[in-house]
């Protein structure tokens, strides 16, 4: 089992879109796949039309009253399950702080699922917090969507620093360029000279209205626009991530 976290400190840059589409592609190939929507806003749950509600909430999970297995929901797609978001996740940070070994709690919760799934995608909320610390520790790979702008690159440095500070192996950070617009000169420049100190994938996701339409269809892009530029980009991205994961 491989745990793949989609993470960035910045919001609104395509983390959830990546988690949902990559998980769908993995499942479509036959891999047993799970998405855990850790963001209390529940965007991933929304895309899968699953109510953002977990019985007994995050407390139930942290106290062991409920296991993750109890709260898994099947999606509309073969081989693809989801653990929905819950409103209580907005306090997850504080709740984690109260338990023992607070930084490896999520890892521990996921452990029993190891034999059930080939891939577990964590859709993380945008923040630097105990939740993100947990996911960074639990993950085998941390996918960081990055918009090719100077400011975003600085954020990327922040993440690497954050890892170093916590003694987390920062080589598991994998970046790809998200919402890329080839007409923008700056985007092009940055893509042509990517940062050297982290791994940047060749595949990138263009700025495309089909990604936005996910909110209308409430489906992964390959389901309603299988031949679109965006779907192809996500396929290429998944191929490259798989090769890195091996």
């Amino acid at each position: 089992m491989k745990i793949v976290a989609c993470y960035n400190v910045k919001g609104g840059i395509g983390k959830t879109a990546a988690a949902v589409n990559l998980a769908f592609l993995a499942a479509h190939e036959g891999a047993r796949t799970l998405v855990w929507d850790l963001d209390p806003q529940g965007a991933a749950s929304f895309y899968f039309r699953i109510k953002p509600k977990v019985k007994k909430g995050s407390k139930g999970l942290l106290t062991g009253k409920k296991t993750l297995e109890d709260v898994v929901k099947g999606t509309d797609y073969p081989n693809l399950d989801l653990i929905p978001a819950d409103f209580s996740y907005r306090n997850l940070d504080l709740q984690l702080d109260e338990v023992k070994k607070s930084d490896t709690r999520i890892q521990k919760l996921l452990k029993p699922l190891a034999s059930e799934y080939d891939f577990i995608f964590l859709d993380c909320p945008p923040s630097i917090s105990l939740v993100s610390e947990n996911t960074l520790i639990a993950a085998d790979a941390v996918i960081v969507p990055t918009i090719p702008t100077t400011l975003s690159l600085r954020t990327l440095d922040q993440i690497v620093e954050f890892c170093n500070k916590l003694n987390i192996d920062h080589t598991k950070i994998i970046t790809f360029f998200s919402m890329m617009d080839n007409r923008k000169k700056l985007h092009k420049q940055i893509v042509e000279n990517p940062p050297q100190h982290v791994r940047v994938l060749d595949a990138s996701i263009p700025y495309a209205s089909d990604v936005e339409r996910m909110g209308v269809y409430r489906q992964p892009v390959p389901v309603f626009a299988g031949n679109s530029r965006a779907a192809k980009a996500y396929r290429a991205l998944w191929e490259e991530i798989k090769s890195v994961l091996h």
Partner: protein
Amino acid sequence: MKSLHSAQFIVSQSIDSDAIFTLLQHEFSLHETDHTRLKCHYLDTFDWRMYQKNYVCSWYQTANKRAKNREGIFFIHEKETGNSICELPLSRVPKFSKDINHQAYRSMLDNILGIRALMTVAVLTVKRRQLIILDEEHKTLALLQLEQYTIDESADDDQPAGRLIVCPVRGYPKVFKRVVQLVTEQLKLPHSREALLDEVLTVTGKRPDTCKLTGFQELESSFSTWEAVRILLQHLFSVMQANEYGLREAIDTEFLHDYRVAVRRIRSILGQIKHVFPDKLLAYFKREFSWLGTVTTPTRDLDMYLLKFDGYIQALPDDLQQHLEMFRLFLQRHWKIEHARLCRALDSKRYQKLTSEWQKILANADMPLQREMSTGSQAQETCNAAEPARIVARQRIWKLYKRILKEGGSITPQSHDEDLHELRKSCKKFRYLIEFFQDYYVGKSMKQLLKTLKQLQDNLGDFQDLCVQIEQLNGFAEQMQQEGLADTKTIMAMGVLVERLNERKTALRAEFRRQFESFIQPEKKAVFVEALRVQQHEGVTE
């Protein structure tokens, strides 16, 4: 990923999807899809390995020629529960476990199939209509599939009954329960009692009765030697015939292997159970079955090299590995030639004559006795035929045991490889005889003796294989040079390979003594003697 228990109901022709729709629409929001037509290929090995492990393997593809998505889907289900274990897109019907990309499923299949191939055991056309139960967000909560089946090769009136399959979605158990309740109580549909595959196999008359190929018919203790031998030979001959198709089609390498084992066992009976056939006939059959052994050997040898090939590559240092590929090419090329030659032999008049003569002989319930034994010498030739099989076999087994003790005991570190080969052959004959006549002797203690014998045989067998491989590899290298297939690197790689094999051979040779000692332990011998209950006075002419 947890597999969920679906519910399957038998549906009579008169019920259509409308009735189900009407029933459920009061409580649920429904979406109904059009009919789809699917081709379902049920897959299993020749010896039904999936079925025996209680799995159903299938490959589905849309039967609609104009469909955009023609990609197939490979399934593994649990036979009894119908639970789905695996659902994978796959463009072609898979043959070997290596055709499955998904690592966990590949190794699961690998454990079950080994080197055996999946074959299509039945083809079914499925007409399916889906009824999807949705919540207010249009999320699927449960799935109903109404299916009608046509077995391609069967008559219209002899088809499996249709089914209604209710599939749960994880995390929505209440919906599933309610649907099942409604269908059971309101529509009064009966639960299906057996797996669809079983129903299909009943209709097609194909049954995985594997005992036909593995076990022998029980030998009664009153049987004469001819009666017993005839049953054994008939069985072995049917194994040969059952494997002929697969070896001609080269479905997998086990067909040829099993065919050859049957031939070898027949030869063993002809050679070991003496004075049953008239001399002239015996000489003919011995010669012809020996010929069959010979014509099948080159293909089997090449099969073996190809099966071991990945192991060969791994035995080499990294930089030489790629240079062995030419050797694989060479083997594949020669395999084709030899296999064609083998098929020609099986098409020959000589083979036809052998099979018809053989069937003629075996058809006769008491052939050797019915013949008027006009001369004394002919009576002598078949003098064991009417004797009790129990006694004749026992004496021969005892004799072979003594031979093994003698041959094995005289082997020293200085002995020639040939001496080990002789011992290997004696062990094989010994084992075959014990297996043939196990009804007479085999008890728990005998099983233990057979276990240590097996270890000894593995040692000797591997040793023999290595001797042959080492010799042949040198020959192949030469041949490849002549065929212009080998550069210096390839020859070098093969040289290193021979070295590795030689090392293994030496190790096996060193191991032999320990295996043999374990086989001849006094307490094991006592057990064996007891099992055979050898009574020297039960004299029968050898």
